[in-house]
């Protein structure tokens, strides 16, 4: 905490974002806006079958079409398979033997224009032998038909087992036990920007590639593996990114296909996904069936919990082991449990691939909180009180042995309760008018081995401005501004003096990306340390000129001055020039590597320090339900999060508001995918119901600061704890309004009406 002071000039302020001017002028370039000389249009031939063997592919007619420059199939690849871990590499970049979902990549075409490329796709003859598909994870585990991947028996892709011991003994001791099952189907990201890629090979045979990404260094390594070229030959470039929400975390097979077409044609190639492709062929959120069995003492404290979760993983592993763990981790972080046993199964089905998502495990988390409310009712305790009795406290260890340093979980509850008027409303609202609370915790980081740290470089230019280099990527959440704010604060410059070079693998060091919520905690931290090192160099030079000791100096507003005698000062620009005249350039580096347990592994050893910090969020939601239509009107949402420290409250509020819109308003009321025989029936924005401006309620944001001792200025993750707790708050509020504890999410009008009718029938 030694680092903490409120005496900052630039951090902690409501600073408008540095990237917004270009965006409001329409000047910011996104991938699909790029036009390179001689650029071709690429298109992907996708499988029409959910499960089929590829007998033959004939591309001769497509290749003969005028304007077609290249057609690639699985035979053209180096045979390298994709998977986040060595033990999950199960996906060819272009399928060669069989296809496993409707939309699987079978061939790629590059042509002079889109019409020609589309015509060429129709001219590719693929002969398939249909195989029996499985779409339901519970059926997939017992199906006797051909396995989706032959080396995964029962179609079980990942099994995570966590057992802290004493679970059965503690259930014996429990005063009250409940066991309930909760379900939720898949949801999608619907990033505003449909996925797009531009790739070319330059004059030195280096691959240059632009695409939305959750971390450029997470793209470059798999591409270097796939093309069997050194890492420095893959240059992932910076480009504006239209949202990620977890869905841009990994390499996409089409990154490879686009690059392969560029290699074959020796021309730049651009591939733009349609909205349908973005939904089907990037990633989705997992469907889940979760059973929580919870045993509590007479005061409602959780003595034992056993959770079993079946996750529909779709056709390939993706981030499987992580995705199978995160819902559990969020639970064990937010709630203390004396003992817990978790079995998470990720099952292959012949459906699109599921990956990381901002509201990971809505069925899991909402079920947990709904059950807690049921237990509270049984024991005659208020839902707030049962959370306060079970919620995480600072200085504790999670069930899987992560030390929790900063934690203001209870403060987020208290503040949200006060702001929302909970005490005046709970139990006192008229029929079909309800209030509910959700609490959650998200990890600031995952153990990511050698890619877990970030390093930044800073150089001063002779005009006194600074160039900051960082591998951090901005998906839209404001990371660029975060880096500029930190650098300006530490260097004593103004934000406009900082020139940011980021998210480019040629010029920046490895960085974990925005993946795992560590951009500020790790990447921002690295910039802070680099800037501090750079400032030290400036102070040494300035100290000589001012004839004082370096430690007496401070920097602010482009000046270096003596702290006790601010009139005694020198412009930073002058210090840089003096330094250069003395044969020294002013530059520095700084790096940050979170001290996680490197032996912790998702499946083999899920114990040990997970990350250095955890964020905590509470959302309270007030709703009215129309008993005749099942429509939910949301009156007010109060979101409170322990973010560690609010580097930019303006940006943080935007994260809260966006998170609760996706997690709560959309995630709990309208958003889900519908299927028929493995085909997604609502892949477009017309059919998939996203929240609109006119749907949104009044929002109260509460930023809670616990000042994490490791985070830069004390900052941790922001936003995701709100997305998760909002889902829980919404489901609790609707349940409270209709007097039925809901177990199937999202809470669409049909389910609400059925629940009301059921209750009326029972009450009779």
């Amino acid at each position, binding site marked *: 905490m030694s680092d903490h002071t409120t005496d900052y000039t630039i951090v902690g302020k*409501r600073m*408008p*974002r540095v*990237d*917004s*001017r*270009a*965006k*409001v*002028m*329409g*000047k*910011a*370039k*996104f991938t*699909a*806006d790029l*036009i390179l000389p001689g650029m071709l249009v690429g298109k992907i031939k996708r499988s029409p079958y959910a499960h089929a063997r590829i007998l033959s592919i004939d591309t001769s007619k497509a290749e003969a079409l005028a304007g077609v420059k290249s057609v690639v199939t699985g035979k053209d690849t180096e045979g390298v398979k994709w998977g986040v871990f060595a033990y999950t590499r199960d996906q060819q970049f272009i399928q060669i033997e069989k296809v496993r979902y409707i939309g699987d990549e079978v061939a790629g075409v590059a042509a002079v224009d889109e019409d020609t490329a589309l015509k060429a796709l129709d001219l590719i003859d693929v002969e398939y032998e249909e195989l029996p598909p499985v779409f339901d994870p519970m059926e997939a585990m017992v199906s006797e038909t051909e396995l989706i991947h032959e080396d995964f028996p029962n179609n079980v892709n990942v099994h995570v087992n966590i057992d802290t011991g004493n679970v059965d003994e503690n259930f014996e001791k429990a005063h009250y036990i409940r066991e309930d099952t909760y379900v939720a189907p898949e949801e999608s*990201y*619907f*990033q*505003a*920007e*449909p996925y797009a890629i531009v790739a070319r090979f330059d004059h030195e045979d280096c691959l240059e590639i632009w695409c939305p990404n959750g971390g450029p260094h997470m793209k470059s390594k798999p591409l270097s593996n796939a093309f069997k070229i050194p890492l420095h030959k893959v240059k992932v470039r910076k480009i*504006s*990114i*239209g*949202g990620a*929400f977890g869905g841009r975390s990994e390499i996409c097979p089409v990154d490879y296909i686009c690059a392969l077409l560029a290699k074959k044609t020796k021309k730049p190639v651009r591939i733009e996904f*349609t*909205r349908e492709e973005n939904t089907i062929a990037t990633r989705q959120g997992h469907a889940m069936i979760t059973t929580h069995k919870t045993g509590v003492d007479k005061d409602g404290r959780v003595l034992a919990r056993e959770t079993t979760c079946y996750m529909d993983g779709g056709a390939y592993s993706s981030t499987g082991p992580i995705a199978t763990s995160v819902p559990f981790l969020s639970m064990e972080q937010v709630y203390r449990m004396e003992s817990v046993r978790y079995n998470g199964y990720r099952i292959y089905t012949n459906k699109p691939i599921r990956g990381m998502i901002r509201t990971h495990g809505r069925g899991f988390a909402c079920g947990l909180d709904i059950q807690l409310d049921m237990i509270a009712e049984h024991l005659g305790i208020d839902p707030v009180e049962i959370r306060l009795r079970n919620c995480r406290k600072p200085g504790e260890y999670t069930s899987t042995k992560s030390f929790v340093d900063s934690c203001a979980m209870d403060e987020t509850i208290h503040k949200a309760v006060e702001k929302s008027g909970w005490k005046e409303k709970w139990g006192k609202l008229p029929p079909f008018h309800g209030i509910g609370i959700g609490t959650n915790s998200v990890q600031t980081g995952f153990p990511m081995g050698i890619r877990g740290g970030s390093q930044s470089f800073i150089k001063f230019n002779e005009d006194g401005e600074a160039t900051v280099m960082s591998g951090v990527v901005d*998906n*839209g*959440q*404001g990371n660029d501004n975060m880096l500029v704010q930190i650098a300006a604060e530490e260097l004593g410059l103004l934000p406009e003096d900082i020139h940011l070079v980021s998210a480019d693998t040629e010029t920046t060091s490895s960085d974990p990306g925005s993946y795992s919520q560590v951009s500020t905690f790790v990447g921002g931290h690295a910039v802070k340390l680099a800037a501090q090192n750079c400032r030290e160099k400036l102070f040494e030079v300035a100290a000589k000129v001012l004839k004082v000791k370096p430690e007496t100096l401070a920097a602010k507003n482009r000046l270096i001055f003596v702290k006790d005698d601010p009139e005694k000062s020198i412009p930073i620009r002058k210090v840089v020039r003096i330094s250069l005249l003395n044969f020294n350039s002013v530059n520095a580096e700084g790096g940050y590597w979170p001290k996680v347990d490197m032996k912790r592994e998702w499946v083999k050893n899920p114990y040990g320090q997970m990350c250095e910090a955890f964020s905590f969020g509470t959302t309270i939601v007030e709703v009215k339900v129309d008993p005749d239509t099942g429509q939910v009107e949301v009156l007010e949402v109060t979101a409170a999060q322990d973010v560690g420290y609010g580097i930019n409250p*303006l*940006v943080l*509020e*935007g994260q*809260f*508001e*966006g*998170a*609760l*819109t*996706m997690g709560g*308003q959309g995630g709990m009321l309208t958003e889900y995918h519908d299927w028929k025989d493995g085909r997604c029936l609502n892949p*477009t*924005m*017309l059919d998939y119901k*996203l*929240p*609109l*401006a*006119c749907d*949104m309620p009044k*929002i109260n944001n509460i930023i809670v600061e616990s000042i994490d001792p490791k985070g830069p200025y004390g900052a941790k993750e922001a936003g995701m704890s709100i997305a998760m707790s909002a889902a829980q708050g919404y489901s609790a509020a609707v349940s409270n309004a209709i007097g039925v504890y809901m177990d199937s999410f999202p809470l669409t009008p049909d389910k609400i009406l059925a629940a009301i009718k059921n209750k009326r029938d029972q009450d009779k």
Partner: protein
Amino acid sequence: MEKIQITLNINDKLCEVMVYHNDTLLEVLRDELDLTGSKESCGEGVCGSCTIHMDGKPVRSCLTLAMEAVGTKIRTVEGLANGDELSDLQQSFIDHGAVQCGFCTSGMLMSADALLKNNPKPDEKTVRKALGGNICRCTGYAKIVEAVAHACNPQDDCPDCKTDSKVRE
């Protein structure tokens, strides 16, 4: 199919451009005229990211044929600022943190600009209704609604409005 030459009046400039009969206005703006501020997000007229003004009215350029735009006055997001000088609405978007990823921003601005031209001091409900055809996935709309409502009607109690009294401070 043959391309034909048409003249479009875009952001007060006459542009001669070769188009196919079935080219959408969005395709022509983006691919022929390099006005890539207008975005394609849904491709079916749902999301509003491609909103432009045709004779002052907001329209979806993905559902409008380029041929239909002949003889009208088109304004795109690139035409909102006066050179480097931003409009009040653009500045308000920046000041209120209404821009996150920025992909929907152009369309939002065009819908909001059309509203403010008729009603410079709209209440919150009016703003929300006027933006009902523009999907934003990042912001939850709160800051966008505020930015539009306050663009021509700065509020003393808003921490993000640059009102005169604050400038004097």
